[in-house]
């Protein structure tokens, strides 16, 4: 962790130094004079993250030129670079979606097909994990979403506040989704659900699942009936202040429920209450989904905030000077109870096949002749802009405030190798899969004998006008192809967005983050290994080796090295295979043996397992989050400790869970056992077993039997109250604390 801070400080120092020497007026047109399209600065020997890292280290006035520090800086810069690549991919895919929409004909110009929306929504979801700029661009420029959102706003006249700009809404969504940095800010607990939907509009974010918002009559025993925080203002607005339509919630000590988000709310209430439902005209489906994701993430952040508050209240001495909240305990949630009323359900997949087989729509007809040349041009623009937006904090500006040419070349060398090759691949795919149809559809448009230029290649000599019979045959073939899922035309989006679900579980597992529960990732990892031992899937003696792997048998570090290696070698095929292996090799959270073959088995031009965005972002997050090392070493430590304390294999799960219950990160402060645990050098298994041994001694001497409570034992000079149960002569510890 200290290393991370160190390299970040170094980058910042370098950046600030450069800013000092750059007149502000020169800082904007950073790329004005450089024509990169034809630039050729010769081969590079080091990837840009290495040369910039060396520069940072060399410019450090405090010295510190150790090899390990250099590597650490390189890793940090590499994480930035992955963001850069991902940002380009998402924006390029978004642009391509617009191009394809423009290429549609007739009625389709005025409507969005399901396949269009699926493609578009995947992109938006991917961009949500990128950066605010990329997300805002993608979200607000998505043609199908834009069209539906416009229609919806025209109808939605009930909004008491008025519309909010798409950019503002996008920023709010992005901030909510990426709220991790604010998780320790208690004030965020009171700002919940403001800004998006709830503060101004009852329906946005709930889509077709809009619940009926029910308001109790004033004289009901209303301590049992509650409404969602943040809705009061809306309800007051809607009711026009009518006391019979709206009554304020009584101030209560706890937070019993809500009617929202519970199945069959009618069953709950013996009363007939007035209900408000929003109009049937719902906003774009992606809005509901994306807001659901943002809310769920924000809820997690609030949960963490609540836990941090909990710690604060349990240890007044540790409370920060700013903790002047009037909360008595987080479980009370103060005078304004917080309610989480919308938990998005994960997408339903009826079969495993649904995970992998994505029906690719028939896109051939949507391509205009200059499609790929436009894509290349757009790539040049995006890749330039993204240098500043993604890598602007690197010390790569010259004294005139422009990005130094050599760095532009270095930065773009790798991105060019990835994207130019990718576009070329897409073009080949188009030629291969659409050329016969292209003949039929376009010849009439361009005339016999005309060459049609797509990108930079002649793809259709157009020398033959097909006979009627041939046209019929081709149409039959086309119909047949479409019935099988359409032409297999590749798009940038298919490499950067779709089929996110299979890899999500892998990424979550890889980072072992954002899990429910108060236990730390280390503790969860240990528990999962315990389960494997218990179920016979893992030998006890292999625990140490298994703990070093990620949950699915991978080491995140290995994936990082492979990603880096393929990029350094400009190996597009390698990076695609790796993405396919990670995504395609994971089915339902379980690694399929031979991930690559699993992906390839799906046959032909299979893109379902490839998701470069997820690969880039997961490795970026892995590098930036200092969690995994703790998980691995923590798990190893746990098992070493289990061996040390002679915990039998069949008892590992119970001891693991019990130690977590008493000494886990969510309960250690509550139990006042921090000092006690320190006497075991943080070894929770040792502390647990010592207390349980003390209980066993009491059981052996007949002093306790059955359920025991409020028994005080002295271990390592500390008086600890223990509870548990003696079953068949065996004392089992349930909890321990110091009152």
């Amino acid at each position, binding site marked *: 962790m200290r290393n991370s801070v160190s390299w970040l400080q170094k980058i910042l120092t370098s950046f600030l130094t450069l800013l000092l020497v750059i007149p502000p007026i020169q800082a904007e047109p950073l790329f004005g004079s450089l024509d990169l399209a034809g630039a050729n600065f010769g081969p590079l020997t080091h990837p840009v993250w290495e040369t910039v890292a060396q520069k940072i280290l060399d410019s450090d006035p405090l010295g510190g030129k150790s090899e390990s520090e250099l590597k650490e800086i390189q890793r940090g810069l590499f994480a930035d670079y992955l963001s850069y690549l991902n940002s380009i991919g998402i924006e390029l895919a978004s642009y391509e979606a617009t191009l394809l929409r423009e290429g549609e004909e007739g009625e389709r110009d005025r409507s969005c097909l399901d396949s269009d929306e699926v493609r578009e929504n995947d992109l938006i979801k991917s961009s949500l994990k990128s950066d605010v700029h990329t997300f805002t661009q993608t979200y607000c420029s998505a043609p199908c979403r834009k069209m539906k959102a416009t229609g919806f706003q025209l109808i939605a006249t009930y909004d008491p506040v008025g519309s909010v700009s798409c950019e503002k809404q996008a920023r709010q969504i992005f901030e909510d989704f990426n709220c991790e940095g604010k998780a320790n800010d208690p004030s965020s607990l009171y700002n919940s659900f403001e800004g998006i939907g709830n503060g101004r509009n009852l329906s946005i974010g709930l889509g077709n699942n809009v619940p009926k918002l029910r308001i109790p009559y004033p004289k009901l025993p209303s301590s049992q009936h509650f409404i969602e925080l943040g809705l009061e203002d809306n309800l007051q607005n809607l009711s026009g202040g009518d006391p019979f339509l709206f009554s304020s919630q009584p101030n209560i000590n706890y937070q019993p*429920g809500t009617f929202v988000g519970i199945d069959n709310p009618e069953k*709950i209430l013996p009363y007939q209450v007035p209900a408000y439902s929003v109009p049937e005209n719902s906003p774009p489906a992606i809005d509901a989904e994306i807001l659901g994701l943002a809310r769920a993430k924000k809820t997690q952040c609030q949960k963490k905030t609540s836990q941090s508050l909990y710690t604060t209240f349990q240890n007044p001495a540790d409370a920060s000077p700013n903790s002047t909240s009037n909360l008595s305990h987080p479980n009370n949630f103060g005078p304004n109870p917080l309610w989480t009323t919308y938990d998005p359900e994960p997408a339903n997949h009826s079969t495993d096949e649904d995970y992998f087989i994505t029906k690719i729509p028939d896109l051939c007809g949507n391509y205009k002749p200059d499609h790929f040349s436009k894509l290349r041009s757009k790539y040049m623009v995006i890749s330039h802009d993204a240098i500043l937006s993604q890598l602007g904090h690197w010390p790569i500006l010259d004294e005139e405030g422009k990005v130094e040419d050599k760095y532009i070349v270095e930065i773009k060398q790798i991105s060019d190798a990835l994207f130019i090759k990718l576009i070329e691949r897409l073009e080949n795919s188009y030629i291969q899969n659409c050329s016969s149809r292209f003949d039929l559809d376009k010849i009439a448009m361009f005339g016999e004998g005309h060459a049609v230029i797509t990108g930079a290649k002649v793809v259709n000599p157009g020398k033959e006008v097909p006979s009627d019979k041939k046209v019929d045959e081709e149409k039959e073939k086309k119909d047949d192809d479409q019935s099988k899922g359409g032409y297999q035309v590749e798009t940038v989006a298919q490499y950067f967005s779709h089929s996110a679900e299979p890899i999500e579980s892998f990424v979550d597992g890889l980072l072992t983050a954002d899990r*429910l529960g108060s236990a730390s990732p280390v503790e969860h990892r240990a528990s999962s290994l315990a*389960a494997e031992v218990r179920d016979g899937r893992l030998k006890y003696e292999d625990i140490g080796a298994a703990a070093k792997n990620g949950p699915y048998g991978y080491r995140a570090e290995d994936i990082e090295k492979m990603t880096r290696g393929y990029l350094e070698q400009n190996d597009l095929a390698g990076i695609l295979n790796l993405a396919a292996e990670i995504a395609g090799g994971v089915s339902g959270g379980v690694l399929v043996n031979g991930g690559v073959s699993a992906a390839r088995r799906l046959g032909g031009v299979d893109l379902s397992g490839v998701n470069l965005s997820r690969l880039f972002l997961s490795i970026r997050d892995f590098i930036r989050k200092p969690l995994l090392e703790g998980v691995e070493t923590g798990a190893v430590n746990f098992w070493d400790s289990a061996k040390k304390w002679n915990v039998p294999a069949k008892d590992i*799960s119970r001891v693991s869970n019990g130690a977590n219950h008493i000494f886990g990160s969510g309960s250690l402060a509550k139990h006042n056992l921090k000092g006690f645990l320190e006497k075991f050098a943080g070894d929770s298994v040792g502390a647990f077993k010592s207390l349980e041994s003390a209980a066993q001694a009491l059981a052996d001497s007949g002093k306790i039997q059955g*359920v025991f409570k409020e028994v005080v034992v002295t271990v390592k000079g500390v008086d600890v109250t223990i*509870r548990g*149960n003696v079953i068949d002569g065996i004392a089992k510890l349930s909890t321990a604390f110091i009152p």
Partner: protein
Amino acid sequence: MHYVYKDDTHTSLLLEGDDALSFNASMVHFSKKIEIKKCTIVDFDVFGMYCLGGLHIHDCIIRCEVSWQSGGHNHEPIVIENCVFEKFVDFEDCTFDSRVILRNVHFKGGTNLFGNQSTPVVVIFAVPPLLDNVSGDINLDTFRVNMK
């Protein structure tokens, strides 16, 4: 029927329609979902019971006192609905790692589910619980009483 569990179990469990259910699972860590429905429970020994796979109790009358201390740790939701607990229910030191939903539940003898604030045995809710039509005293402070 009398059910006694002494070891951790890894199969899901459904108990239904028993009008004199006795359930002993103290210190047992259930990894799969437990469902108890349409039962009259006369003995419910769940001291230190973990419900990792979730718990669903519905349409039941629980005639006995319940001591569910230092348990929970559900990775899946715990749902209790349409139930009457005739005697006191003790949740001291429980930790609920996932959602808890109480709906149409009457704690006739009260419970300390939301009591014992600022004590080492306060119940931890990692996810805010949802309660609907819950009656009875659910804020009882029992810890200090016990410690005296």
